């Protein structure tokens, strides 16, 4: 369990200055919330003390390696590990047959095995794992495991995958779930709202375009790492079990047979602990228990600080099952640390999208009808793909009023690493296409694209065309903030040729109303215990992955209980100690965990107020808790150190602890099949303006600056909100200009081989590449968010990409409809435009620019 405290001797700054308020001022009742605060783990991270998964070493720990497929698609004929097992220092081998259950983070599409059983589906798919006394031996042993394959035709292009027939020469990547289905389709969604056809026909202008969004990956700087520890049950070791010793069914044919349990209790006794750099300890816990046939009460998942995730660690991976199985088999702790190359194979990154959009509007720029077709290139497994397919359409219906909308999305399997959720899951790609469509529409109508967006803004307290409930909405304020900050009115269309500004907007969920597996239990929970020392211990189920979750609960607890921040200890990321939270994904944590923490803290606060009121003979609500004191509201000169207030409460009520939880409202989704997907308790809104410089000789685009305005409801700590906004805009910029997860074709020699599985060749931006990023926080105070807060971690990524595309158009008049806007691609478009005489500054609406600039350079 990782513990992060707001204080401790190593912490600089000592106790936070105890701001004693003169009664809480009415304009804001908040003492800490909204201030620029340190993170509770900030100093641990700035001193090398934070212990990530690979920093953990257990006595007797073995190291393991996974053997991976060299073929994009093949049958496994045989696996011979005898030479590896004979190698000095090798302690155990597992293969797919040892773990025959399938798993999948979405319960309806369990299509993966921890290690492949009879088929590999991409170059890098795991087939066996070997544990040895050290890493060098494990690597050597992995090379001695002989796997015989029978190669199958591979599909790298989703359009080709859809043409497969399932015959001998055209096999499906997965067996169809129902006879007659195409086994290369994960999911198809067709949803239709309003009079799409009629309104399109009646539109004064219709813009049509084809777009391509290339796949990208998360590339967290920390590679995935997991450690497994198996502790056989003492009782069992005493001889109660049939075979004695470890009973994990690792022999082929014995394992994973459902029904071998009696009375619903799995037969394997003992305790499994897995440390993992995961962002979903709860889902990992569930899947470990299910796949390894263990009683969930005997499984513990510990999530140490995670070195970046971005959606790339939000489901179980082969290494977690392998360390568990190898620990059970060898009786020793086992660690696997992915190589950087393996991180690229694990992937679950942004799906490549092939998109077509038609957008119709009236002549004064009112959106009428939107019609979309999307083909998602899913890679080898489903991952979150069912949800991605819905998100590809469902999340587009705000922030603009859209009278009619239809989308048709298909996710195809291909023989590449599986795609999944990357920051802005499933909605970054359509947002790119849609916001470029809007720019084209504005141009056709000779309108200012900021004005066009403003005039279509849907406002708050409304429902979208697909029935999503939208409450707080600061979109127009966001647009106006970036319009002002960028000098839009004076500079758009007026910068010299080669320089341009572009705008885009977006909307994103703050968590999903429905959990990944259907259940009615809370989505997030917190337990708080306080004692006579004044110390507040918060047990949080949520996953700190760098976004500041542990700090957020500490701020909330300190705010509610009136203690200095460094009196709060946060214990998180350990399924044995903390209540369940579903994980760090879909921008759910601040909203849900924040509310859960308020719930728990207020239960305790009431007890403290009651006890102090009893002492003072006043009303409980006249007792304020703030800044390390209990204060008498009518006269704050009367006060008691918070520690003494806690002592009064402990004397009155006994030991002080409380749980708090949050669950989503369940009555706010669409009344159609699929209408629950995309529904969220609150939506965040964002607008960006990007400024670019385009070199027409080289096709090189330099993004000078991005102005980011984001409606996060309320910034609980503006430093962290800005950090999320900047990190998001950076990541969007990176996808716009630099990143592509691509694979070699058959003509290039190794069909399906990752083109560049390293941080040198898969280019992520350095400090020299990254533009200046300017954060502008907008607060709409959401009625249901904690203190009004909504998400900030994913929404602010979306507009970066279309804003840059639109800025390139403003700079030199070309449209970039395919990502990334890399020099070769841009240069080709420039040359096409030059040949057509269209390489010039676009005309400003209503005020033609005389200088009709063209190439200023020779």
């Amino acid at each position: 369990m990782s513990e992060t405290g707001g204080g401790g001797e190593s912490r600089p700054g000592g106790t936070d200055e105890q701001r004693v308020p003169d009664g809480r001022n009415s304009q804001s009742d908040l003492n800490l919330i909204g201030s620029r605060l340190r993170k509770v783990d900030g100093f641990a991270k700035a001193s090398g003390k934070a212990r990530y998964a690979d920093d953990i070493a257990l006595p007797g720990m073995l190291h393991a390696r996974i053997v991976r497929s060299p073929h994009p698609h093949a049958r496994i004929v045989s696996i011979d590990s005898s030479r590896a097992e004979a190698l000095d220092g090798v302690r155990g081998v597992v293969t797919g047959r040892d773990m025959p259950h399938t798993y999948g983070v979405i319960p309806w599409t369990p299509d993966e095995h921890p290690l492949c059983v009879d088929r590999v589906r991409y170059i890098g798919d795991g087939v066996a794992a070997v544990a040895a006394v050290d890493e060098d031996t494990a690597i050597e042993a992995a090379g001695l495991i002989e796997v015989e394959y029978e190669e199958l035709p591979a599909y790298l292009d989703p359009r080709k995958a859809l043409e497969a027939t399932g015959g001998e020469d055209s096999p499906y990547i997965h067996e169809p779930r129902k006879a007659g289905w195409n086994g290369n389709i994960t999911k198809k969604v067709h949803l239709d709202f309003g009079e799409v056809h009629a309104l399109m026909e009646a539109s004064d202008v219709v813009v049509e375009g084809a777009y391509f969004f290339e796949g990208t990956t998360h590339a967290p700087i920390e590679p995935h790492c997991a450690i497994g520890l198996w502790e056989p049950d003492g009782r069992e070791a005493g001889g109660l079990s049939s075979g004695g010793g470890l009973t994990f069914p690792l022999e082929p044919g014995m394992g994973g047979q459902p029904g071998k349990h009696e009375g619903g209790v799995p037969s394997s006794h003992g305790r499994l602990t897995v440390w993992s750099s995961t962002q979903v300890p709860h889902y990992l816990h569930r899947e470990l228990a299910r796949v390894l046939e263990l009683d969930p009460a005997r499984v513990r998942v510990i999530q140490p600080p995670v070195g970046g995730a971005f959606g790339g660690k939000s489901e179980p991976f082969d290494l977690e099952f392998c360390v568990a199985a190898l620990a059970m088999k060898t009786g020793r702790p086992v660690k696997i640390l992915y190589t950087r190359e393996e991180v690229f194979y694990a992937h679950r990154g942004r799906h490549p999208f092939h998109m077509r959009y038609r957008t119709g509007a009236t002549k004064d720029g009112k959106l009428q009808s939107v019609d979309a077709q999307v083909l998602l290139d899913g890679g080898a497994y489903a991952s979150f793909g069912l949800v991605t397919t819905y998100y590809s359409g469902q999340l587009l219906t705000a922030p603009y009023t859209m009278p009619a909308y239809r989308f048709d999305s298909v996710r195809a399997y291909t023989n590449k690493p599986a795609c999944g959720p990357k920051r802005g899951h499933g909605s970054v790609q359509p947002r790119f296409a849609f916001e470029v469509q809007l720019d084209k529409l504005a141009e056709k109508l000779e309108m200012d694209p900021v004005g066009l967006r403003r005039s279509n803004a849907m406002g708050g307290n409304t429902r979208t065309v697909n029935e999503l409930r939208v409450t707080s909405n600061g979109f127009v304020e966001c647009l106006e903030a970036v319009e002002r900050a960028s000098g839009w009115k004076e500079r758009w269309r007026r910068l010299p040729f080669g320089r341009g500004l572009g705008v885009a907007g977006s909307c994103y969920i703050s968590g999903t109303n429905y959990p990944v597996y259907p259940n009615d239990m809370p989505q997030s929970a917190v337990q708080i215990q306080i004692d006579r020392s004044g110390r507040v211990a918060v047990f949080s189920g949520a996953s700190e992955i760098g976004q500041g979750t542990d700090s957020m609960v500490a701020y909330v607890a300190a705010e509610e209980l009136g203690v200095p921040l460094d009196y709060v200890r946060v214990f998180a990321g350990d399924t044995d100690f903390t209540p369940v939270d579903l994980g760090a994904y879909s921008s759910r944590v601040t909203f849900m965990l924040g509310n859960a923490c308020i719930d728990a803290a207020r239960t305790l606060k009431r007890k403290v107020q009651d006890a102090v009121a009893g002492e003072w003979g006043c009303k409980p609500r006249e007792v304020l808790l703030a800044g390390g004191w209990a204060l008498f509201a009518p006269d704050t000169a009367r006060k008691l150190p918070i520690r003494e207030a806690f002592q009064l409460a402990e004397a009155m009520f006994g030991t002080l602890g409380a749980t708090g939880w949050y669950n989503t409202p369940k009555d706010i989704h669409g009344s159609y099949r699929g209408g629950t997907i995309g529904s969220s308790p609150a939506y965040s809104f964002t607008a960006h303006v990007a400024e670019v410089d385009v070199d027409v000789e080289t096709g090189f685009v330099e993004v000078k600056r991005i102005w980011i305005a984001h409606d996060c409801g309320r910034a609980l700590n503006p430093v962290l909100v800005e950090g999320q906004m900047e990190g998001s805009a950076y990541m969007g910029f990176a996808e716009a200009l630099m990143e592509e997860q691509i694979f070699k074709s058959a003509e290039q020699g190794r069909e399906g081989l990752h083109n560049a599985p390293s941080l040198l060749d898969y280019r992520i931006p350095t400090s020299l590449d990254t533009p200046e990023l300017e954060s502008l926080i907008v607060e709409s105070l959401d009625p249901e968010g904690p203190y009004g807060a909504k998400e900030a971690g994913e929404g602010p990524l979306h507009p970066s990409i279309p804003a840059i595309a639109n800025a390139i158009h403003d700079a030199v008049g070309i449209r970039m409809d395919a990502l990334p806007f890399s020099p070769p691609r841009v240069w080709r478009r420039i040359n096409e435009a030059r040949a057509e005489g269209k390489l010039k500054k676009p005309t400003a609406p209503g005020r033609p620019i005389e200088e009709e600039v063209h190439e200023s350079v020779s």
Partner: protein
Amino acid sequence: MGATNRIVDLNVNGDRRIAGVPTHYTLLETLRYVLGLTGSKQGCDKGDCGACTVLVDGVATLSCIMPVWEAEGAEVVTVEGLARESGPHPVQDEFDLNGAAQCGFCTPGILCSAVGLLERNPAPSREEIKEALSGNLCRCTGYTKIYNAVEAAAERIRTGSADGAGRR
């Protein structure tokens, strides 16, 4: 297995450390897996990411591609050695104050690059900071808060102003 070992005699954070290591070990492997100094991180193990940056005789160095014996006779400073007796190094404190460490995995390396920069250039421009940190990838922050932290620390060191105590 099969690896031959050698004895290395190192000076790390002012401590003399003598250790037996496999001959092929890098400085990073020695720090992390032999000396227990896990502050320096491994993000790629091949010189691409900068997470393993340490100071070798004051120069920011990628410890994942430095054979450990090359560090013999040099003064090695890792993130664990940056703090001063009086408290954290101003760069560390400013990272904390400015939210410059999100996941924190790039942070130890970036801190070493930044300290190396400030030691040779106490008043770097933003461009010089970008240049000095260009070998350290950060995937979380977009770098903005990192620049702010380095600038604030430079200012604090130059003016000898009090540390960040009392500031939240």
